């Protein structure tokens, strides 16, 4: 019997966490060769992963929320105190 879409989606997610066993790989490959929705889901997952990495990376570029003046002053003071120690 063919693996259900639900089981296939779970395996596609777990594939990002652990190597699939050979039997799982074969069953998943068979399912994907016949199921357009799950193939689409696999692409969505890849897109999600790449986008999260990109989003994370973008925080390091210079735009977006900034430290408040208060926080900045507090941190500067803590750093000063550290140097005096």
């Amino acid at each position, binding site marked *: 019997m063919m693996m259900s*879409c639900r089981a296939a989606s779970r395996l596609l*997610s777990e594939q990002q966490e*652990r190597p699939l066993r050979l039997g799982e790989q074969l069953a998943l490959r068979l399912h994907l060769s016949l199921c357009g929705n799950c193939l689409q*889901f696999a692409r969505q997952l890849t897109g*999600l*992963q790449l986008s999260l990495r990109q989003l994370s990376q973008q925080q390091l570029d210079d735009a977006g929320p900034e430290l408040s003046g208060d926080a900045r002053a507090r941190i500067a003071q803590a750093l000063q105190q550290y140097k005096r120690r």
Partner: protein
Amino acid sequence: MPRLDDPQQWLPRHGDALYRYALLHLRDAALAEELVQETLLAGLESQHNFAGQSSTRTWLVAILKHKMLDHYRRLRREQPEAEPDAQLADLLDPAASQFLPDGHWTQPLQRWGDPHGLAQRQQFLLALEECLASLPPRLARLFMLRTLLDEASETLCQELAITPTNLWTLLYRARMGLRRCLERDWQQGESV
């Protein structure tokens, strides 16, 4: 070989970037500020260990990642019974509503276009940020923690004292939740 910036310059040059990074992952401004401070202090303390293999910012971000993981570990130690993961897993299962009882998808999935192209589209990234914010905070944090650590998820399990099966279930639910949210909020895919 890269050298570290003068520590006097760390806060003005890298403070905001560290803050944004922490904020994205922790979704808590006060906590993000605190960890920026801890990161800079830890940097001062360990600057002599700098191996010269990265920029100052990359080096500080690596310290920040450790601090975030530390924080998560501390939290688990201090409030182990608040929102236990197993309970959390039972409470929300975004996958349930996306499948019929026979295991088929309830609705056809949208085409989001080429995954690499997707990651370059600001509109999609904005929608993703909003969808992250709509997940239960704890699930979102766990999911971001997984994203920011390049390590295998087994390492993360050990650090967080959570079983792999539990972690995989939670990550699966986070992905299914995000997917559903994005299909609702982001409808540019068809036009690609």
